[in-house]
């Protein structure tokens, strides 16, 4: 780990670049459809950046353009102040971890990890020694001689990580890395990805459609939709002030309701049921009650037709429980209502 870090700092230019990755009006077209529409983005050094959005929003195309697996139709991509837009994949200082991991099925773990060194002509002893260091980094040293088919999904992912990291990338690109794992493993690998990113001190760009994942991991969260970047910020900035109704709905945990002040987003955990007070209110009917442990989620349908939900602390809910079918009023404090643009 220490060796990686030191190599990186000596390899850099005299002036530290301001951004690890810079996209300038990057556009991707397939035939007539525009997958990515002139997006610009700056990712500061050593960031964990999550590209978040629904399927077909252009996040994977963006990642693949940075990796060099897709041609950029327009615009420029810079990595540490170097324009890499037209460079071949291997010359960009990026490494990509594929959604399917794409581990070579005919090679054992050690040979998979050592593959890039072999391509560069590093001798057997040298490349195996180095590959073992990286297997060690992902805690897979005892699996060196196994074939990928003999590993679980989580273990395959660790090998894929080691195989990418051995190229000493300045930027690691991860395409939906956790989607193939079961929920428990997903949370554990999530922690591990974050730990690796922190220890290696390089930028990770992680594509996901899960807002939980993005919120848990990101230093910089980029919400995308229909080939555009809708909002960029820390997860907290975005959760506390979603820029428009789409984002409020997509990141979840918000009610988007039309009020006299226009469209507003209110966090569901700031809403209450049935208390009249100084706040605004909306009346409707309870359609579902979900006990979730620390909180109880009460789903409502408003008289005007909108759906909304209140996340109530369990003791608050059980002090005045409601049942599906009950008439109920959703109330919130005016200070918690955040005006959002119609999207």
């Amino acid at each position, binding site marked *: 780990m220490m060796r990686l870090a030191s190599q990186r700092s000596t390899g850099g230019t005299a002036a530290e670049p301001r951004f690890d990755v810079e996209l300038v009006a990057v556009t991707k077209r397939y035939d007539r459809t525009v997958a990515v529409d002139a997006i610009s983005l700056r990712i500061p050094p050593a960031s964990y950046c999550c590209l978040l959005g629904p399927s077909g929003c252009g996040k994977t195309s963006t990642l693949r353009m940075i990796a060099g697996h897709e041609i950029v139709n327009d615009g420029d991509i810079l990595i540490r102040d170097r324009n890499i837009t037209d460079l071949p994949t291997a010359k960009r200082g990026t490494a990509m971890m594929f959604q399917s991991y794409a581990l070579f099925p005919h090679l054992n773990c050690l040979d998979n990890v050592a593959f890039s060194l072999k391509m560069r002509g590093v001798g057997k002893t040298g490349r195996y020694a180095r590959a073992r260091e990286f297997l060690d980094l992902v805690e897979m040293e005892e699996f060196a*001689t196994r074939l990928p088919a*003999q590993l679980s999904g989580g273990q395959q992912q660790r090998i894929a990580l080691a195989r990418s990291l051995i190229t000493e990338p300045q930027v690691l690109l991860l395409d939906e890395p956790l989607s193939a794992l079961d929920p428990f493993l997903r949370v554990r690998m999530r922690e591990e990805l974050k730990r690796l990113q922190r220890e290696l001190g390089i930028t990770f760009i992680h594509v996901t459609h899960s807002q939980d994942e993005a919120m848990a991991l990101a230093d910089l969260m980029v919400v995308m939709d229909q080939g555009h970047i809708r909002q960029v910020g820390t997860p907290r900035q975005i959760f506390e002030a979603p820029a428009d109704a789409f984002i409020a709905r997509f990141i979840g945990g918000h009610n988007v309701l039309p009020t006299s002040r226009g469209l507003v987003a209110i966090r569901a955990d700031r809403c209450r049921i049935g208390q009249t007070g100084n706040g605004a209110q909306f009346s409707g009917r309870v359609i579902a009650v979900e006990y979730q442990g620390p909180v109880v989620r009460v789903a409502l349908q408003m008289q005007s037709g909108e759906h909304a939900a209140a996340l109530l602390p369990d003791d608050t809910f059980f002090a005045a429980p409601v049942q599906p079918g009950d008439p109920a009023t959703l109330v919130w404090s005016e200070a918690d209502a955040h005006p959002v643009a119609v999207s």
Partner: protein
Amino acid sequence: MMVGGQSYQTAGRGRPWTFYALATLFGFFLLFLYGPMLVIYILSFQGPHGGVTFPMVGTSLVWFEDILKPGQMANIPVSFGRSIALASVVSLLTITISVAAGLAFRRRFPGSGVLFYLAVASLVMPSLLVGFGIGLGFRALDTKPSLFTSALGAQLTWTLPFGLFAMFAVVNRFNRAYEEAANDLGASSWQRLRHVTLPILLPGIIGVGMGAFTLSYDEYARTTLVIGERNTLPLEIYALISSATSPTLFAIGTVTTGVSFLIIGITLWRILRLQRRRAGAVPS
């Protein structure tokens, strides 16, 4: 609920009558397929004074010895050698060309549609006519037909489309991400082909090679009009059948079957050994 209860009872009573009907049909099919061959294998060990039908008059190996004597009508060992040599060349060419074509057809390219339908047409064309046409062509060019010119070409018109279609199936299951990963890890196009694409496709490629070998090894219709003066094994056997009948024919059948199983066995054994070595490699 009723449906569930009924099916449960059926399961408890045993298999439905259709199972026995279809199993009987399948039994007849197996008998039809392997029965005649079994008869041939048995009769090839016919005694020296026996004929081409049952009963067996003792047992002997004289008919096998008979194969090796160059007869007046047929020279089996030499034509066998020719067939193996031709089948090897055909199989190598089929592998090389159809692997390249299979990889190329992953993308649309100008003329890919036309090329595809031309390949289909070559399979559909009556085989005797193909052979006849090639024969006429060689005569028109005043060239003598021979084993590695006209016969090779005639067989390729059959094995190449077959190989191409087999490669479509092989390549279809190939995940492009493997190649992208290889690019990502700094492999050049050649390195990618040699270290990633070909090894992953290898089982399918061996299958194509074996298929082409077998198709060539027992090809008759296309080869017969273009072979020239030196026959391959199927042509030689056909000549034997139409001229004389003795248990020698059966002995030839037994030997060629043995050779086929031997080739398949060796190939499978090598594939398995390759896989085991890959799995068990412990580099230190």
